[in-house]
C-alpha cells in the first residue's frame, strides 16, 4: 500500500508546504495546530464544524480536489469531536435537560469527520471511523491494507485526526497525562516526570497501489505492559518483512514522548537496532495525542521522499545516508503499541 499523497495540519508549518520545516518550538504544555484559513470549506458549513471536523475536512479536501474520487474514507480518531461533545453535555446539565440545540450533538459523534468529508465530496463509498484510543490510526491503516488487498486498483483517503479541546485537556491533565511543569518542547526527552505535551493535528493520506511511492509494508499492534513481549512482537514483524532484519532498518521514528513511566519501551526498541539506523522523534513537534502516529507516518513519507531527516527531529544520525526502510514504533500510555514499516521499492 503506497502513500500517493498526503496533507498534514499540525503544530508545525506542515500544511501544503514543499518540505517540512520544524521551526516552531513553543514552551507550554499544549501544542496547538496551526490551522489554515480553510478557504475551500463553504462558510455555511464551516460555522458548524468543531475543530476536529474542521481540521480533518480541511486536510482531506485538497486531496479530494486533486484526485480522482477515492473509493472510500477511513478515519482514525481517539476522541472525535470532544469539544462539541462536552458542550452538549454542559447544555444537558446547565439547562437541566431542557430545550437543547442539536448541532453540538451531531458534530460530537466521532464519525462526523468521515461523514462530513464524504458528504462534501459526494462520496458514496466505504466510510468508517476507528476510535480505539491510541491505536485508532493503526487500525485505520490495517483497514486500508485489507481494502487494497480486496480491491488492488482502488485508492482511499486515510486519516488520523485529534483535537485538543478544553475538556479533554482537563481530563488528560487530571489523569496525569500532561506534564505539570512547562519544559521547553525540545527538552521534554530530558525529563523523567509523568505525562507529555498535549498535541493535536490532522494527517490525511491518499493510499493506493503506486510502486514508486513510499510503501506501507506492514502495520501491527499489540496490547501489553511488558516490554519484552512488545519487542518480541516488533522483532517478528521486522524479520518477516525485511530480509536483513533490524540491519535493514535505516530510520527509526520513535514515539518517545518524555513520559518517564514508559521511556523504557523506547530504550528497549533502540537497543534492537544496529549502528546503521538513524533515530528520529517527533512528539516535541506534534505533541502527544491518540492518533499521533499518523504524524509519524507522514514524517516517514517526507524522509523517504526528500532523503533527509529534518534536523529538529533528529535524535541520532546513524551511519546510513540513503534511507530505504523506516520503522515507526509508538506506544500510547504504555499499554497500546503500534509498529509500522514503510519502505521505498
Amino acid at each position, binding site marked *: 500500500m503506497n502513500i500517493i499523497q498526503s496533507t498534514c495540519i499540525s503544530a508545525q508549518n506542515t500544511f501544503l508546504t514543499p518540505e517540512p520545516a520544524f521551526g516552531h518550538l513553543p514552551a507550554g504544555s499544549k501544542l496547538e495546530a496551526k490551522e489554515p484559513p480553510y478557504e475551500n470549506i463553504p*462558510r455555511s458549513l464551516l*460555522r*458548524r464544524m468543531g475543530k476536529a471536523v474542521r481540521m480533518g475536512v480541511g486536510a482531506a479536501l485538497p486531496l479530494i480536489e486533486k484526485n480522482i474520487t477515492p473509493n472510500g474514507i477511513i478515519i482514525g480518531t481517539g476522541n472525535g469531536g470532544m469539544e462539541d461533545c462536552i458542550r452538549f453535555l454542559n447544555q444537558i446539565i446547565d439547562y437541566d435537560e431542557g*430545550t437543547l*440545540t*442539536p448541532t453540538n450533538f451531531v458534530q460530537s459523534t466521532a464519525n462526523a469527520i468521515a461523514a462530513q468529508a464524504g458528504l462534501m465530496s459526494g462520496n458514496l463509498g466505504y466510510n468508517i471511523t476507528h476510535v480505539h484510543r491510541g491505536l485508532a490510526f493503526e487500525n485505520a491503516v490495517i483497514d486500508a491494507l485489507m481494502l487494497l488487498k480486496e480491491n488492488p486498483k482502488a485508492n482511499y483517503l486515510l486519516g488520523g485526526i485529534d483535537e485538543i479541546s478544553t475538556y479533554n485537556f482537563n481530563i488528560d491533565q487530571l489523569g496525569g497525562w500532561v506534564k505539570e511543569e512547562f519544559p521547553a518542547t525540545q527538552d521534554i526527552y530530558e525529563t523523567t516526570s509523568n505525562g507529555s505535551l498535549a498535541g493535536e493535528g490532522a494527517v490525511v493520506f491518499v493510499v493506493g497501489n503506486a510502486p514508486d511511492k513510499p510503501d506501507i509494508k506492514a502495520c501491527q499492534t499489540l496490547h501489553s505492559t511488558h516490554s519484552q513481549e512488545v519487542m518480541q512482537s516488533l522483532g517478528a514483524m521486522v524479520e518477516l518483512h525485511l530480509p536483513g532484519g533490524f540491519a535493514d532498518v535505516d530510520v527509526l521514528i520513535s514515539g518517545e514522548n518524555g513520559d518517564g513511566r514508559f521511556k523504557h519501551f523506547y530504550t528497549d526498541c533502540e537497543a534492537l537496532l544496529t549502528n546503521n539506523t538513524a533515530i528520529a522523534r517527533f512528539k516535541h513537534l506534534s505533541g502527544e495525542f491518540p492518533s499521533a502516529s499518523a504524524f509519524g507516518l507522514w514524517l516517514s513519507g517526507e524522509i523517504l521522499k526528500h532523503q533527509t531527516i529534518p534536523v529538529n527531529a533528529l535524535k541520532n544520525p546513524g551511519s546510513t545516508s540513503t534511507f530505504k526502510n523506516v520503522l515507526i514504533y509508538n506506544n500510547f500510555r504504555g499499554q497500546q503499541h503500534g509498529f509500522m514499516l514503510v519502505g521505498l521499492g
Partner: protein
Amino acid sequence: MDREILVKDLKKHIITYLNLLDMTPEDLKNDVPLFGDELGLDSIDSVELIVLLEREYGIKIEDPKEGRKVLVDVNTIADYIIAKTPA
C-alpha cells in the same frame, strides 16, 4: 421596550447562536429572509433560533407552524418578542 435596542441585541444573539462567521450585526439586514439563499440557514438553525428565544427571552415556541410564521426575518422575530413580552 426600545425596538432598536432589541433588534441590535437580537442580531448579536443570532450571530452567536448560529455561529455566522465573519458577520457583524450591521451585516444582518432586518428584512433579509433567514432561510433564503443569502444566509442559507436550514432546519437545524431553526431549532437553534427556537432555543435562542427560550434562553434569551424566555419565550417558548411549541408549535412548529407558529415557528415557521415567526422565524422569517429579524423584523418578524423582533415583533414576536415585543408581542410576547409583558409591557
